[in-house]
């Protein structure tokens, strides 16, 4: 199942058309492969990027979708060993036993509130289990790198590359 616009993509597109602009203009190559972890990232991205994402709903959802595309793109350039490790983690977070082992609860991540996800991330971050720490740092780095790799997300940084 392809879910390029997991979060109310239709609404974002409609709003953009109404404004006469395209809020969502991916510059990266589209990812053709089935993107089975998109739903999982779609609940993690707003938590990890809280404060960085736009507040208005349309640009916010465009930024989330852009980041989800960038995550897919980032995954394709990682070496196979890292992709395998990440795949293992993501698969674990998508099945009940894995979620129980990693988070101490069987509640799927997709059903958790942002506050509950923060509690989970903090427990990993402060935890002593290497597996949980690596999960936290791995997901954090992947999401941060993917978001800030997109020039359209540099507005609040006041960063731009020089014109040569």
């Amino acid at each position, binding site marked *: 199942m392809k879910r390029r616009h997991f979060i109310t993509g239709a609404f974002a597109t409609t709003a953009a058309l109404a404004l006469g602009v395209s809020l969502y203009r991916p510059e990266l190559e589209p990812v053709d492969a089935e993107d089975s972890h998109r739903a999982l990232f779609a609940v993690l991205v707003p*938590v990890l*990027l*809280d404060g*960085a994402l736009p507040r208005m709903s349309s640009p916010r959802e465009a930024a989330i979708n852009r980041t989800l595309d*960038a995550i897919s793109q980032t995954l394709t*350039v990682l070496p196979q060993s*890292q992709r395998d490790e990440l795949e293992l983690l993501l698969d674990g977070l998508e099945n009940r036993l894995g979620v129980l082992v990693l988070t101490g609860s069987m509640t799927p991540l997709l059903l958790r509130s942002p506050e509950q996800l923060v509690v989970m991330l903090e427990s990993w971050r402060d935890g002593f289990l290497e597996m949980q720490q690596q999960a936290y*740092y791995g997901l954090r780095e992947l999401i941060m790198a993917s978001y800030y790799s997109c020039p359209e997300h540099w507005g*609040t940084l006041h960063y731009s590359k*020089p014109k040569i």
Partner: protein
Amino acid sequence: MPINDPIAEGLAAGWHHLDGSTMTEDVQLEADVVIIGSGAGGGTAADILSEAGLKVIVVEAGPLKSSSDFDMEERTAYPNLYQQAASMKTSDKAIGIFQGRAVGGSTTINWTTSIRTPEPTLEFWAAEKSVSGLSRNELDPWFEAMENKLSIREWALSPNANNDKLKQGCEQLGWEYTVIKRNVAACWNTGYCGMGCPVNAKQSMLVTTLPAMMTRGGTLLSRVKAVQIEHHKDRVFGIRAQALNEQLKPTGASVMLKGRHYILAGGAIHTPTLMMRSGVIDPYELLGKRTFLHPTLLSGALFDETISAHSGAPQSIYSDEFVWRDGAAGKPGYKLEVPPLHPVLLASKTIGYGRSHAELMEQFNQLQVTIALVRDGFHPKLEGGRLSVKADGSFSLDYPLTDTFWETARDAFASMAELQFAAGAQKVLPISEGMAMMGSWKQTRQAIADMSLAPLKTVVASAHVMGGCPLGEDRQLAMVDSHGRSHYLENLSVMDGSVFPSSLGANPQLTIYGMTARNATRLAGELLKTKSPA
């Protein structure tokens, strides 16, 4: 203003370049010398050997990219030009390692800092590691020659604000600092050296020695990965390689490389890994041991004025105040420098997420970052890491961050914070979990004294991989002699940072240039003596 692309021009003029991604059939290539790796060692060796009239093939696993490809964006540069898309890490994920993987190796993406090998390092090698003939007096003519060749000169412009804060802090505290020499010509001072120089000002191997080699008729293979050294008794009789596609996966085509002599210059991870994978004789089990990283700590500081740490020459000032304070073999010291900041680099090498992280990112242009590079491989309790070859032929690097390292890290965090406050910082943030922005040196000093330091929780990075195939005259300590010649395979040399018996306590590119110039010149003389007339 249009910018010439010397690589595109050279290819159009008929340089011999084979791109593995276009190879559909197995091939065998022959030359006087086969060089594996196109970075500081491989590029320098290729230039000297081809200038001497020897036929050279240079083999690079990464792609051939040039200024036309360098768009000054991290999302392009990291996948195209860095090992593992700049996500390479030690096996426990505690140290992120930046290393080049493209034609020109790390010289294509480094920050141009050029420092002659510190004398205490060379003295330590001579006294403890059986290295001969590598005193500063003996090396200085080679450094001078390479400095002339690569336009290595003291940076004459004012440092950017990021570097200037390092300078100001040193001045305030009476600490030593030095203006850095850089390998640039007609530099535009933009600050994007780490993403490939877009204007060909950086005198990397990509635009200097490798074009010179190809202009003399040498051959460059890109996207071709050496996988096996074929050897018997005391000689190498070939190196087997794989052609790689654009995703750097094997195409199925193989390349057999034959030469009179072979030089390994793939860097301190890939040279030892190739030798181990090939079962090269190693009776004292030295290969891959003592791999050094200059493990590096980071300290952020907020200033009232604009810093714009992405803009301007990335590194133009360093301080050696703490590198040798307790002697070479004493408590490990650390070198103070600054990194350029770009969005992905800063976002991924800081701590936290959500609002606190977003607020830090919003202050991007007020943020100054100082780094402390720890001198590893001298103290007996900071002996570096260990490479091993996995079942699939790839490598893993275990690097224990010892108590000795963390003691040094605590000192380094304190020095960086003291320096940043002395330079006028409003707030300082040691980049480690549990720390927050603090507004006074007194408060920060106490917090650093009490802070918890641990793998993963404390951000540790490296841009200098060294060791794993040491040089020296004693076979119990060294795989190659002091000229880089194998102790066991008579037609094999190693010319890259893997030959360092310890880290350097300085950025490595100029050491590799100088040592390789010396060793390749001698090798050329020896090969010419036995070269049959054409």
